[in-house]
């Protein structure tokens, strides 16, 4: 198990480094220019001023030097400053991270609980009315983009109930109910895709397991249907589902920036969009690596859990 974990961690470090290189290059290959974005849409820029700003931001240094300085800063905790407002990137991250994590964790929990539950119900009552309803809803959840659903939710609540979530961020520690009111719709919008995909996978996986011999044996030995489904079938059916949960986190994190923008939540995702629009390289790089690290960490955790849940994986490792 230790060797298994060590191997996974080593591959994570290598993956993160590779992602950092890719992010660094992609940002600089983006059309548009950080200095031009700072100058804004006013009168044409004086070339001497452009050169001076480029030098002041360190953008005239060779790319390997810029990369080295950035990575060195990441590893030592000096994340640099935003081009736009000279603010510490660390501060920007700390400010936005709780909001993004609340949406991501909330959506993962909601997606998992409802997805798995609905998948079990659909499998147990295969080809029944509720199976049909759940499967159709699942297709809609996969097909409809989360940002469109979010906009529709806001439109519905504002016109039918004259209500929208609180417009300014409400901390869960100061006002838990207000925070719940603010995050309920964003979490739901982001989690719908996750619910749908986990429902479908759980259903498929459960159907395979429900027809296995060991389950028939358990039933014939007097095990109740409920116990056999929950205690025996579900645990085996969840193995592939857990893998998809990790994948869904990445999909979720990709949707969070738009959701934060739609709901006016100043999280990491929304800040990242602003940084991309203004080519704030340091903010883009650091936040993207951070989000990538979160995704990788979640999947590492899932890989490790897999080893715990499935003895075959532990022994093979």
């Amino acid at each position, binding site marked *: 198990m230790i060797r298994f974990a060590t191997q996974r961690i080593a591959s994570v470090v290598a993956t993160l480094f590779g992602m950092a290189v890719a992010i660094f290059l992609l940002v600089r290959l*983006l*059309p*548009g*220019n*950080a*200095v*031009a*974005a*700072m*100058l*804004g*849409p*006013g*009168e*044409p*820029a004086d070339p001497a*001023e*452009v050169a001076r*700003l480029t030098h002041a931001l360190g953008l005239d240094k060779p790319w390997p030097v810029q990369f080295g300085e950035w990575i060195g800063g990441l590893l030592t905790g000096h994340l640099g400053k935003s081009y*736009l*407002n*000279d*603010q510490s990137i660390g501060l*920007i991250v700390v*400010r*936005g991270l709780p909001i993004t994590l609340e949406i991501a964790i909330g959506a993962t929990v909601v997606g998992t609980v409802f997805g798995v539950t609905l998948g079990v119900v659909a499998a147990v009552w295969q080809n029944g009315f509720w199976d049909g309803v759940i499967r159709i809803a699942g297709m809609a959840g996969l097909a409809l983009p989360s940002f*469109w659903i979010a*906009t*529709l939710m*806001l*439109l*519905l*609540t*504002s*016109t*039918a*109930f*004259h*209500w*929208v979530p*609180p*417009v*300014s*961020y409400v901390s869960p520690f100061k006002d838990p109910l207000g925070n719940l009111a603010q995050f309920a719709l964003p979490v739901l919008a982001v989690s719908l895709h996750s619910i749908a995909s986990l429902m479908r996978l759980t259903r498929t996986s459960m159907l395979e397991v429900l027809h296995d011999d060991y389950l028939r044996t358990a039933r014939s030995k007097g095990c109740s249907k409920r116990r056999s489904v929950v205690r025996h079938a579900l645990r085996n059916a969840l193995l592939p589902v857990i893998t998809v949960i990790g994948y869904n986190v990445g999909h979720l994190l990709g949707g969070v920036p738009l959701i934060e*923008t*739609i*709901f*006016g*939540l*100043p999280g990491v995702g*929304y*800040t990242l969009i*602003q940084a991309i*629009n*203004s*080519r704030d390289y340091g903010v883009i790089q650091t936040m993207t690596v951070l989000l990538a690290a979160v995704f990788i960490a979640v999947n590492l955790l899932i890989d490790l859990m897999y080893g715990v849940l499935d003895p075959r994986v532990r022994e093979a490792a």
Partner: protein
Amino acid sequence: MRNEAGPSDSVTGEVAPPEWGRIDRRRFLSLSAGAVALPGLLGSRAAGSVDALAHLAKPKRGGSVTWGTTADPVHLSPYGEPLGATVESLQMIYESLVAWDPRTLKIGPSLATKWEIPDNTTYVFHLRPGVKFHSGKPLTADDVKYSLETQKSPPPPGLPTNSAYPHIASVEVVDPMTVKVTQTQPDPTLLGYLAWRNSSFIIPQNMYASDTQTHADGTGPFKLLEYVPNDHVTFTRNTHYWKSGLPYLDKLTFKILPDEPTRLTAIRAGAIDGTTVSTDSAKTLESVRSLNVLKGPVANCIVMYFKLNGPPKPWHDPRVRQAVNFAIDRQAIIDNVFGGQGHFSSIVPDGYGDWSIPQHTLRTKYEKHDKAHAKALLKQAGYPDGFDFTLIVIATPVMYPQIAQVVAAHLGEVGIKAKVQPLQSATFEEHTQVSGDIDCALTGKGIRDDVSGFFVDVNRSKQPWFVGGWSNDKFNNLMDTGLEETSAAKRKAVYTSAQEIVLTELPIMPLVGYNEFQPVVNRLKGMYVAYPGYEPGLTQAWVTTPGS
């Protein structure tokens, strides 16, 4: 120019049901946004409220307002070529020596009660007694000296430049309440620069020694209470404001909501008290009883740039530029993109004092839609079958690509094929500001401190890359004269002639100006759409229910 809510600005009549069987392009775009279709399905409602008696209501002290803004200020430092979203907040906190009347653009006293111009390079400002900064420090001439000197090359954040800075040689403290500003050369833009309040705020001496991002200290009607980046900026009333009785509001919050459908739903639900929306969105709010949709012209103008230097291109020939000008039906742009809420525009936007060429002259002479004449010009220039070019345009706000598509359609009718290429803002600015890698570009221009500011793009002294290659001796002389002349009447003659040259030779081509829409909740009174932009009306607005 009327830009205040009143009987003729309010909406009357019923809302027509959506025409599902016939959807034009504008309607399709509205449906795609998703935020405009459902209200029609939910049933038409009676006309929106008519705020006909607002001007008779007596203002009430107290209450708070939340205004939905479109972008984050990024920081609240007063200098450094701040972004528009930054200036929007700064204008609540800080003031300058003089100020525009937001409706007439007449320059009047502000922190200076009067000024003298003893010669054409000297201004003497007499400060208003009794004015204090929010910290309690009295305003003195030393603060003005520090402010004017720091504005020229400000410390970070922001850019260390000030492109509008007038030719100030020195600022002298005559006495604690008198400042003498001496210029390096005659420059009539000084008062406009100060009134514009874009980078000309008066701050306390040595303010930049502290953290200007978290510390704001102005003389304005509101004090900064809190700035949470990407979320909101909150102000409280300056109880020692020198304008007696103002502001009425106790608290003002700018909530940052960049997504327009989100702002629409928020104002429908009453989560915000006002915001700015597009023409299409304003139409969907017309039937909402709880809202009053204000409208008014703003000092923005849509323009097209041609690249006049570099390898030989059709644009070098003024007949080609004129052909493009006459091929475009500006009224169609106004009708299709702005719902009829717009006007023709010279390079100086309509409503900027009395500087602009009159609408009638623009419509019948300089910007007349005449396809036959356009085709004849193309034939004379050697392009009887037209030509192809790429038109880059900023992707958002969506009105820009919409206008570009309409322009492309009109040009196609005379044989000119325009490939419209929407670009994200940083990419667009890289092309138009830095590399010069364009064929033709379509964008917008905002207000300027002085009429001369509208000619910067074609002023040879600036040598902008994309008009290098165009020169007109008479125009160049007018530019020099306009900056040396201090008589308003003579300057008007100068800049009228300059506009006529630009509209004839078209080194850049103005298209249209438009109205802006600001829906507000019924309890918010005294608000209006300000021609220079931003929301100066909030400094004198009030709410009918201060307890809410």
